[in-house]
């Protein structure tokens, strides 16, 4: 007679220690994945869909994760690839929802400075995606330029250049009062900019 426990283990039905550890680490970075995704695609609901897609892909690819390396960096790579694929399928085009963003971005009263967070978010969304993600990784996610370059699969100099350009654009918009207006205009401009860049990349160009 076969020992049921041994049979179960043989079938892989009992999670081993590595799998448990992987899952724990993956679970721990979910808030970061949500924050990164929301910065990339703007809408909280679509961002969460993107994170769920990322988690499934990460889980399926867990054997390729090297224990001891950064789970956050590893899953960010998966997330950005999923995002870029979805972008090319136009999933995010024209779906920015001002009302949802506005509700989500209201800062607690004691933290509200002269710059409203929804203004910041709108300004961020007008940036081309490659510059926006570089700024998110370094300026919000706290990655070094080197780590951000690894995540994006590009040179450190490229990341520095993208961050610099993103920063210059935001500074000009915010400090000179050239903020995108609330309403459809800003999103249309943002999407036009994104789609221009994607067309450029898809025809073999690069974004600096």
């Amino acid at each position, binding site marked *: 007679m076969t020992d049921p426990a041994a049979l179960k283990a043989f*079938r*892989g*039905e*009992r*999670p081993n220690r590595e*799998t448990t550890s992987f*899952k724990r680490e993956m*679970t721990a970075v*979910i*808030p*970061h994945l*949500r*924050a*990164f995704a*929301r*910065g990339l695609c703007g809408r909280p609901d679509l961002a*969460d869909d993107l*994170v*769920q897609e990322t*988690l*499934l892909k990460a*889980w399926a690819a*867990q054997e390729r994760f090297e224990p001891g390396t950064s789970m956050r960096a590893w899953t960010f790579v998966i997330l950005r690839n999923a995002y870029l694929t979805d972008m090319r399928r136009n999933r995010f085009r024209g779906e920015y929802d001002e009302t949802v963003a506005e509700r989500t*971005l209201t*800062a607690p009263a004691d*933290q509200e*400075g*002269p*710059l409203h*967070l929804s203004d*910041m*978010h709108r*300004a*961020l969304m007008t940036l081309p995606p490659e510059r926006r993600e570089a*700024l*998110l990784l*370094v*300026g*919000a*996610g*706290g*990655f*070094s*330029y080197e780590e951000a370059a690894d995540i994006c699969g590009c040179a450190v100099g490229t990341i520095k250049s993208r*961050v*610099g350009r993103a*920063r*210059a654009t*935001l*500074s000009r918009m*915010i*400090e000179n009062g050239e903020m995108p207006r609330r309403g459809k205009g800003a999103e249309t401009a943002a999407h036009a900019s994104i789609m221009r860049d994607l067309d450029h990349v898809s025809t073999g160009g690069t974004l600096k």
Partner: protein
Amino acid sequence: MLRGPNEKQGNYTPAMANDNAEEKAPEQMQEVLPRGGKRSKPEWADGLRQLYDNVLDEPLPDSFADLLSKLDDAGQ
């Protein structure tokens, strides 16, 4: 106030810029540092981080617990 090299009297040398933080070239002042950098940051830098941190502080929607439990069921 910031003074650019051109506004200084006499010859400007890079070595002089290192003596005083106020005399850094504009492009150095504009460099965005990873979190925790101590040099001056634009006023919106905190806003950018706050956008990110606000999401970190949100409770996870139930859909994530559902997804994670399904991974258990898959028995990988």
